[in-house]
C-alpha cells in the first residue's frame, strides 16, 4: 500500500502542475480575447473595399 507521505508528495506535484496548467489556460483565454478585440478593430482600418460592416468605434 502507498505510504501517506508518498501520497502527499504525489498530491503536491499534482497541485503544482494543475496550478501551472490553470495559469497557462487563463493566460491563453486572456490572449485570445485580446486578439479578437484587436482583429475586430483592425480590419476596417485597412480600408476594406468590400461591404464589411464596420463595428469598431471611431470608424465612420
Amino acid at each position, binding site marked *: 500500500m502507498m505510504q501517506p507521505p508518498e501520497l502527499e*508528495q*504525489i498530491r503536491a506535484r499534482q497541485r503544482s502542475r494543475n496550478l501551472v496548467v490553470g495559469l497557462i489556460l487563463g493566460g491563453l483565454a486572456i490572449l485570445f480575447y485580446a*486578439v479578437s478585440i*484587436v482583429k475586430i478593430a483592425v480590419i476596417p482600418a485597412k480600408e476594406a473595399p468590400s461591404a464589411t460592416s464596420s463595428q469598431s468605434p471611431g470608424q465612420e
Partner: protein
Amino acid sequence: MSQAKTAALPTDWRDFYALTKPRVMTLVIFTGICGMLAAPGSIHPVLGFTAMLCIAVGAAGSAALNQWWEADLDAGMKRTAQRPIPAGRMDPISARDFGGFLAGASVLIMGLVIGWLAAAILAFSIFYYAWIYTVWLKPRTPQNIVIGGGAGAFPPLIGWVAVTGDITLMPILLFLIIFVWTPPHFWALALFVQTDYANVGIPMMPVVAGVKSTRHQILGYAVLLLPLTLVPWYIGGAGNLYGISALVLSSIFLFYSAQVGLRNAEPGDKMKPEKRLFAYSIFYLFILFGALVVDRFATLNGIQS
C-alpha cells in the same frame, strides 16, 4: 520499491519547462523580436506578442521533440545526462506528446492570428530542427552544425514575415547571417567539449575532420560573415548606424576567430581563445541584431537619413 515510487510520482512541471531549453530560447526570442522590429511596417503589440509567443512555443516544441529523440545520446554525455528524460524524471512518451502538442498549437495559432505564410515557415522550421537536423543529419555528417544552423536562423525571418506578410531580400539576409554565424559559434564550443560527443558517436567536426581543419573552417566562416553582415547596409536595407556597428563587431569576430583558427592547442591547454570566441559570439549576435533595430528607429525618427 524505490523504482515504483519514481514511476508513480508525476513529473514536476519544472521538468517540462526544462525540456523547452529555456536558455536557447532567449536568443530565439531576441532575434525574433529584432526581425519584427526591423521590418518595414508595424504590427499591433498584441499581435506582435502573439507572433513571438508562437515562435517561442514552436521552438519549445522542437526542443522537446529533440530531447525525446536523443534521450539515449543525452544519457551518455556529462553535459546532458541530467536532462529530464535521461535522468528518469520523465516518461519519454510524455515528452514526445508535449513537444508534438506545442509544435502543432504554435503553428495553428500563428496561422489563425498572424497569417499562413508565417505559420508555414514556422512549421517548416520545426520540421527542419526536429527531423532534418535531429533525426537525419546530426548522426550522419560532421556538417550537421552547418545545416542545423538553419533551424536557429528562422526566428528573425518569421518575425519579419509576421509584420510584412511577404519574403524579401532583407529577412533572407538576416537568416543567412545567423546561418553563417552558427558554425564558428558552435565549433568554438565543440573544441573545448569535444570528448563528450566522441563518446556517443555524434560526428562533430573536431572529432571527424580533426581539430586543425575545424580551426581553419571557423576562420573561413568568420571571413564570410564580415562582408555578409555588411550587405544589409550596402543594399540600403539598413543605415550607417548598422553598417558601422556591423563592421566593428564583425571585425572583432574575425580577429578572435583568427586567434582560434591559426593556433594549435597543446595537451592540457586552457583553451582560452576558444572560450573567448564562444562567449563573444553570443554577445556579437545580440548586439548586431540590436543595432539593426536601433538603426531602423534612428531612421524613423530622423536621427539619421
